[in-house]
């Protein structure tokens, strides 16, 4: 494949979505794990581990959406109507969880704090579920006629999309638990490790189930993954998933090794899933109807933006890293930012 501008944009967008998953994944995961930490003390601490950075984390979602709009407007114009209820649910869920960061500290009654806890928990879970189901909808194929979505209004709701949704919820919970393992100590850390093992099991189960189902969704997927001799090349992805899974399990159960290791290994699992998605979907942006080239914005649009993006994205990564550096280390109880 020649590295033309459209391919470069596809890679850049994939990068933006992956950074979003890296950063907001654990962030949403904390909300998903809220039910397992009933005490106010633990919940305060959990929220404070991300309070200074959550805005920036969610901005990558805006870049993913905005970048798709700019570089592949046709894909944006088809995918969003096709997954309309999921997108609306995700946006409203993000409203609930986003405001909880401030509102929770402003509550004066037990009831209102409970309400914002529920908003954080429910919002995070629904957002993760909707993201997973959107991915599933895309993967199972979207019906297109002309330049518009032409499927039914419930196409997004199938056992496969639900499976993808649950897998993403579990995956984010795994990232959240590994993040807590990194940022806290004492009993909270103990519980986080225990939850990470459970979430890890469910996540890997989800990965296996989604991977097993995918080749049977489209013949193109089947040939990509299971036909000889290509299988020799693509098989490296599932093999690496197996290796990382064992390594993660060992690092979580032994309790030895640095606290950042499980988090990095969990991110590695996500990266492999991403690679797997790339193998399945390439060269389509909307399988099986629209290729990246068909959906691409004209060169003048892509070039104008690309010039800025190659300069700005590294700068953004630098100051984002700086913000994480400022708030690095274990969070001590009572070290409330609020």
């Amino acid at each position, binding site marked *: 494949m020649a590295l033309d501008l459209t391919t470069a944009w596809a890679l850049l967008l994939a990068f933006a979505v992956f950074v979003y998953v890296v950063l907001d994944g654990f962030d949403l995961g904390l909300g998903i794990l809220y039910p397992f930490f009933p005490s106010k003390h633990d919940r305060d601490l959990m929220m404070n581990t991300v*309070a*200074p*950075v959550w*805005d*920036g984390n*969610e*901005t990558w979602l*805006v*870049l993913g*959406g*905005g*970048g798709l*709009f*700019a570089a592949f*407007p*046709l894909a*944006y*114009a*088809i995918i*969003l*109507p096709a997954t*309309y209820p999921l*997108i*609306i649910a995700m*946006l*409203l869920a*993000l*409203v*609930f969880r*986003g*405001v909880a960061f*401030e*509102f929770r*500290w*402003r*509550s*004066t009654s037990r009831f209102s*704090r409970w309400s914002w806890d529920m*908003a954080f928990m429910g919002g995070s879970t629904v957002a993760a579920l909707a993201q997973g189901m959107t991915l599933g909808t895309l993967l199972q194929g979207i019906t297109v006629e002309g*330049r*518009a*979505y032409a499927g039914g*209004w419930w196409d997004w709701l199938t056992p496969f999309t639900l499976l993808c949704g649950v897998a993403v919820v579990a995956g984010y919970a795994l990232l959240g638990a590994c993040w807590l393992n990194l940022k806290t100590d004492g009993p909270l850390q103990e519980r986080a490790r225990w939850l990470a093992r459970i979430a890890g099991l469910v996540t890997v189960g989800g990965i296996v189930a989604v991977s097993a189902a995918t080749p049977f969704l489209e013949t193109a997927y089947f040939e990509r993954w299971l036909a000889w001799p290509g299988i020799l090349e693509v098989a490296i992805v599932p093999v690496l998933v197996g290796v990382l899974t064992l390594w993660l399990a060992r690092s979580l159960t032994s309790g030895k090794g640095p606290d950042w290791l499980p988090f990095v290994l969990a991110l590695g699992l996500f990266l492999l899933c991403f690679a797997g998605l790339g193998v399945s979907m390439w060269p389509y942006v909307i399988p099986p109807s629209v290729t990246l080239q068909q959906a691409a*914005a*004209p060169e*003048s*649009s892509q070039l*104008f*933006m690309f010039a*800025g*993006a190659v300069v*700005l994205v590294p700068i*953004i990564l630098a*100051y984002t890293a700086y*913000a994480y550096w*400022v*708030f690095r280390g274990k969070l001590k109880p009572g070290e*409330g*930012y*609020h």
Partner: protein
Amino acid sequence: MDTFLGLDATLLARIQFGFTVSFHFIFPSISIGLASYLAVLNGLYLWTRDGVYLRVFNFWVKIFAIAFGMGVVSGIVMSYQFGTNWSVFSDLAGPVVGPLMAYEVLTAFFLEAGFLGIMLFGRDKVGPGLHMFATAMVAVGTAISATWILSVNSWMQTPQGFGINADGQFIPEDWWAIVFTPSFPYRLAHTLTAAYLTTAFIVGGVGGWQLLRGRAHNPAARRMFSMAMWMIVVTAPLQVMVGHEHGLNTLEHQPVKIAAMEGHFHSHEDGAPLILFGLPDQAAGEMRYELSIPHLSSVIFGLGWNGAMEGLDVVPDEEEPPVAVIFWSFRVMVGLGFLMVGAGLWGLWARWRGHLYASPWLWRAMVAMGPSGLVAVIAGWITTEVGRQPYVVYNQLRTADAVSPLGASAVGWSLIAFIVIYFAVFGAGVLYILRLMHREPDMGEDDADAEPGPTRAAGITPQQQMDRGRAAPAE
């Protein structure tokens, strides 16, 4: 025809966009102004070491955090509204407006979000210099954000620099022309000034409230009221002038919008009157119960006593925007603008007479006018957005042809969900903000932080105050 509660999908999508964008824009118009105000306060504190500035900063930074958070989450919604409800617009205009919005994300959203955490929580972690830098970056980010999104809006109002391809897509040909359309500088100046003025009235209203509560002895309450009154006396007349220039620009590029704003159903060959009030009857093409001043509209637009102005009769009926809405929203905006100038002059007079802190009626007026900027901003946007109908890209793409192929019930139900959830969630947020506004700013009796001393100490003290302030309600 496919309808939901008697409304078709296009109208529902327009209501949904209007509702979500109006709700959203309330928060940026506060946070653009407050971010700059906070940067100024922090800078003045570091420069003068006067602890009062720091206490005013600490009072407003918590309000800013809530407003900013609500702006972020309602803004994420906006970035997806184009695709969910306006997919044909996204497909056709995406090549032009998409990159501008991507630049907004890359140059503004990340900057604001990346430095917000340090601004809010990092004063004693990074030291005063870097904290000041972070605070300034947040302020700069809000202004850059406004610049890009107004460039998008201005292109949709006065499009240029594009061609059209076989699929009907707008293809960018000259980016300079696209970013700097004829209406852009005026719209940007008018909107930024509006954000600063809106914030000045909110700060002034809260200052007035504090003084009315018998807190005239609190230096922080006096300081915020005084600063707001200075800001208003400068900004309000400036905004009237900027608005006037924007109007002249609109007359040049969108004369039909001006005809609707002025309520001119008929063309006037020898001097158009300024209609102060009246009841527009669009079906009949008449202004009923008109109260007007002859020739004044032509004079205001610089056309001379007998200057000719075209009315809505020069365009076919289906090219007319809905007149009544913008006739009234325009009058609300302008009326509030002149009241604001009056409030500024009143404050100046009270200050000159030396009783700025002994004028309960001025304080009451300022409390009453606290939200006036927000109302004026929404009224202004209604005027300009409804005024370019029936087009979404002016004279190029009709709104009705830009909508997503969705069923009316899908749009209708999501609209209901947005309305219910926005009122519940943002209602709670407004309640929390009002509560913070009601609380008395720190008195700072010891004034230890006013002493010039090691910068480290100045960094620690406010953090402890913040912790105390935040810990209390959470317990």
